[in-house]
């Protein structure tokens, strides 16, 4: 086959597919700027005739969107910080420190990696109820503070830290905590960013668990609130599109800014593992 023709086909296909993946997102933004009712006409309009921010105003003024946005920001940030504290320390220890039963323990954890977390949700709910954490921010964050996936990710990366470096520091009399803080953490920086982005996006996008554990509207995260609004306001296309923009734009921006780390993380977890 002619090389030029092949190049046209490859790039044409890529362009078409990229159009398919981006179209719903672009349409969301366009429809969110349309006055009520405009997107429900035929043929479906692609650009707003008279762009307006009314839908956003309505969402923040009457639908409590500001509150949900604040909840989401707060929960995602807290979950990310906690998850980094727990998982980075554990992942490093599994890679570089010796303790009884380490390898058997790690194998067991990795074996549990494929268990869907939803299987544990009913008892987890009862446990958190006993602890008084149902319907609180804590109920959303606490179960995810440490994750097998996070430990696994950090461990795979930490394996590449040279032992001589750690031994030299020990001979110089540095404590384990000191070694961790001033040698290990700087070396692990790329994977820390990766895990941070994963946790941030994961917590932000999570739906089923917050739906179960939060009952007060005041505490809802964006996805839970949006799902509720979408069930109530089936006809308000434009309003719902504005809600979707508020929910999904922050994570898209975080991803675009840090995509190098995110995409590296995906391949650390699979190809090299």
């Amino acid at each position, binding site marked *: 086959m002619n090389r030029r023709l092949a190049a046209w086909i490859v*790039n044409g296909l890529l362009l078409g597919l990229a159009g398919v993946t981006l179209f719903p997102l672009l349409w969301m933004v366009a429809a969110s700027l349309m006055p009520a009712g405009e997107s429900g006409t035929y043929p479906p309009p692609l650009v707003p005739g008279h762009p307006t921010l009314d839908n956003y105003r309505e969402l923040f003024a009457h639908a409590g969107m500001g509150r949900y946005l604040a909840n989401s920001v707060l929960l995602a940030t807290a979950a990310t910080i906690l998850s980094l504290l727990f998982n980075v320390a554990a992942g490093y220890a599994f890679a570089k420190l010796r303790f009884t039963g380490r390898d058997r323990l790690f194998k067991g954890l990795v074996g*549990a990696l494929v268990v869907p977390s939803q299987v544990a949700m009913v008892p987890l709910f009862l446990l958190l109820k006993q602890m008084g954490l149902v319907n609180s921010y804590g109920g959303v964050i606490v179960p995810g503070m440490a994750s097998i996936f996070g430990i696994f990710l950090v461990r795979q990366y930490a394996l590449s830290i040279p032992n001589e470096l750690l031994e030299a520091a020990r001979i110089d009399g540095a404590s384990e905590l000191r070694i961790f803080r001033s040698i290990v953490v700087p070396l692990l920086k790329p994977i820390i960013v990766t895990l941070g982005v994963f946790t941030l996006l994961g917590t932000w996008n999570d739906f*089923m668990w917050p739906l179960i554990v939060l009952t007060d509207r005041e505490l809802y995260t964006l996805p839970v609130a949006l799902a509720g609004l979408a069930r109530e306001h089936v006809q308000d296309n434009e309003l719902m599109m504005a809600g979707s923009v508020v929910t999904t734009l922050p994570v898209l921006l975080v991803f675009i800014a840090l995509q190098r780390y995110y995409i590296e993380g995906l391949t650390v977890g699979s190809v090299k593992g």
Partner: protein
Amino acid sequence: MSRRAAAWWFVGPALVVIAVFFILPLLAAFALSLTDFDIYALADLSNLRFVGVRNYLQLLETPLFWHALGNTLYFVVVGVPLSIAMSLGTALLLHSRLARCKGLFRTALFAPVVTTLVAVAVIWRYLFNTRYGFLNYVLSQVGIDPVDWLGDPHWAMPAIIIFAVWKNFGYNMIILLAGLQSIPEELYEAARMDGASYLHRFLHVTLPMLSPLLVMVSILTVAGYFQMFAEPYVMTQGGPLQSTVSVLYFMYEEGFKWWSLGSASAVAFVLFLFVFCVTAVPMRIARRGLPG
């Protein structure tokens, strides 16, 4: 502080969290599935009774449970191959030496993966609208009559599968792309010397080199597709005629709408068994085939 003690300070907190908030509930799920835990037991634990396998027997007689199981299998059996095919196809395109602006295309194709499932499900609900949805508009341009995507029991699941493939294929695309990039170029050179066509090179170099990764990716995707929940929750609420009720959706309603927590745990355990059978067993076989 000794090194050994230090190690426990590093792993201890994470292990405690995982043990208390994951392993313990996992074991409790099985115990709970053997009880009649309901709203009365929720109020006062003395109402709790051990009922053996009664919850499981009752599930077998619940038509909705079978519906949910059938729908979920439909979603997995049709959705996963489509999803993997899209991932592989786009990974090959991005890997092609002829492709331009690879970084840009990669970001665009991957974007749906990082979006919020609930938010994009809301978007697609409107794209699927029978009267003014964009999909039917496009179809009408090529002379196809409007399809009642989310209102027709025969079309609701295909619609959700289209949506799920759009949302998920980018994830495996990235992993397969990394796999393609790790295939040694010499193998292709040798094949080219022998005069192998593109199709031949794909069938005799790319596929065999990629197959361990393809198996792994497929297993993980199957496990992921078994966890379908937000899609029907937002787009169809399980309807029409319960054609999109998934196992997890059924578990959610059973447990957190009707508060039959014993029965919901039985559903969760059945889900666990399914996922275990389709992941752990093939994974073990696949590992045996891998060197090292």
